[in-house]
């Protein structure tokens, strides 16, 4: 090894991290090279002096200041941070999770579709019927005795719609008047003829959504056509954005200017998504009008 290489190894030699062979070579070199020996002595002197420098101690115990700051920080922490740092956080969280799981199991078990092998469609149909039955059971008997739930179609709808049963003498005329009313109010309806089912006959059925603000007006107009019995069973309401425009007809609002509010959006985000304009969020009531001829009434 050359002198330069030897001097490069001083640091590792000093710290005793050189391999045995290199150690030996370096020692041999130092014993015969005066220049390297001098450099080594100087190196040792400098590093030893460096090692002799005292370890400075802080002027006072800084642990007091540090702990003061840390405790101050603890108070500033928000509730979930404090909760997270709690000693019993893990058992607490585990108990909470267990409770949530248990409640979910009980709820789903009660609903009866937790371990069901039925298809979603079958389940949906079953749910509708069962929820209707539940509603029927919970209703006062005086209302039930009127027989407004007489038809099976109304039973199916009642879980999700407000059912308006319209009793008329002339069904075809009533259908025409309903169609006109819907057109005037700019309501788009899914018209459906229903197959008659003994002992009661449902002649036709209209399903649509109406803004809550215009429900009373619609009811007023409907009572002019025939006798209406109202079963407000629906708890479901879809929220829609409606852009109010200048009155064009006797109905103040043009419903064609509606856009559905997508689920899971915050009001602010939904408004941004709706774009410019004076949009207002209005709840919509799902309504089903079931036309029944007076002759079929119980």
């Amino acid at each position, binding site marked *: 090894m050359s002198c330069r290489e030897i001097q490069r190894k001083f*640091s590792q030699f000093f*710290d005793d991290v050189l391999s045995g062979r290199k150690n030996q070579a370096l020692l041999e070199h130092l014993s015969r090279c005066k220049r390297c020996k001098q450099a080594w002595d100087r190196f040792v002197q400098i590093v030893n002096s460096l090692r002799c420098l005292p*370890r400075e*101690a*802080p002027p006072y115990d800084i*642990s007091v200041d540090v702990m003061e700051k*840390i405790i101050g920080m603890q108070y500033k922490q928000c509730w979930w941070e404090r909760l997270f*740092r709690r000693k019993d956080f893990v058992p607490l969280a585990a108990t909470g999770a267990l409770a949530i799981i248990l409640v979910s199991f009980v709820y789903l078990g009660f609903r009866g579709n937790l371990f069901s092998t039925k298809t979603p469609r079958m389940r949906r149909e079953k749910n509708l019927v069962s929820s209707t039955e539940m509603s029927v059971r919970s209703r006062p008997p005086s209302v039930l005795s009127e027989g407004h739930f007489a038809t099976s179609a109304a039973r199916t709808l009642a879980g999700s719609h407000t059912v308006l049963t319209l009793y008329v003498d002339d069904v075809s005329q009533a259908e025409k008047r309903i169609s006109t009313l819907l057109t005037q109010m700019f309501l788009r309806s899914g018209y459906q003829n229903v197959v008659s089912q003994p002992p009661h006959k449902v002649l036709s059925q209209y399903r649509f959504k109406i803004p809550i603000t215009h429900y009373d007006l619609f009811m007023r107009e409907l009572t002019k056509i025939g006798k209406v019995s109202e079963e407000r069973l629906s708890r479901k309401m879809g929220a829609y954005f409606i852009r109010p425009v200048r009155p064009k007809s006797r109905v103040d609002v043009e419903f064609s200017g509606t856009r559905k509010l997508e689920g899971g959006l915050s009001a602010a985000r939904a408004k941004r998504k709706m774009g410019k304009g004076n949009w207002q969020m209005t709840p919509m009531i799902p309504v089903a009008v079931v036309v029944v001829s007076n002759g079929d009434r119980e």
Partner: protein
Amino acid sequence: MKTDSSASDKYKNDNRRNEEGEDKKIIQRVLHGEINDFAILVKKYQRGIYNYAFRMLGHEEEARDLAQDIFIAAYKGLRGFRGESKFSTWLFRIAINQTKNRIKYLRRRHFFDEEQYTTGTKEAPDLLSTLPVSGDNPEEAFLKKDFNSLILKGLMTLPPEVRGILILRDIEDFSYEELSQIMGLNLGTVKSRLHRARHALRKVVEAKIAQGRK
């Protein structure tokens, strides 16, 4: 020629292993909510951390502030300590990063241009006064103190990253493996950096001696 012996090394390693276990127990207690136990760790390591901060910044108050910040940063990140390395190496890793940031901050504020900070050319009363006076012979003691002051001045003229490794190895007495963990470098890089740092210090000290002779 060599300073270390295997017996003392073994004793040192055993001692360190015990300390390591103790530290981990304390950390577990702190994480379970006994915050006040963190003071034990602060008391244990405050001297090393303060010394590192003081040698890096060369200013008592700044070093004290920095040492406090290092411990607070360690407390905040205590959950991130996985126990794979020793607490001391983990703490010094934080110290290195905090010091780097503090030096940057102080440079922006021209702190190192002011008189309180001492480079090789200026007097450093607070640093020089810390040197020990030892030996029976007063002349010898004076010469030794003079040489030590030269080393100290030389150390302070080195760039912070070079100075850092010298402080960690030669004053704080960390091993090469610990240095590689603290600095996040592989062992070979640590060896070469340490060699370069010591070489740089030697050059500076020799230059100062030569200057003194003229």
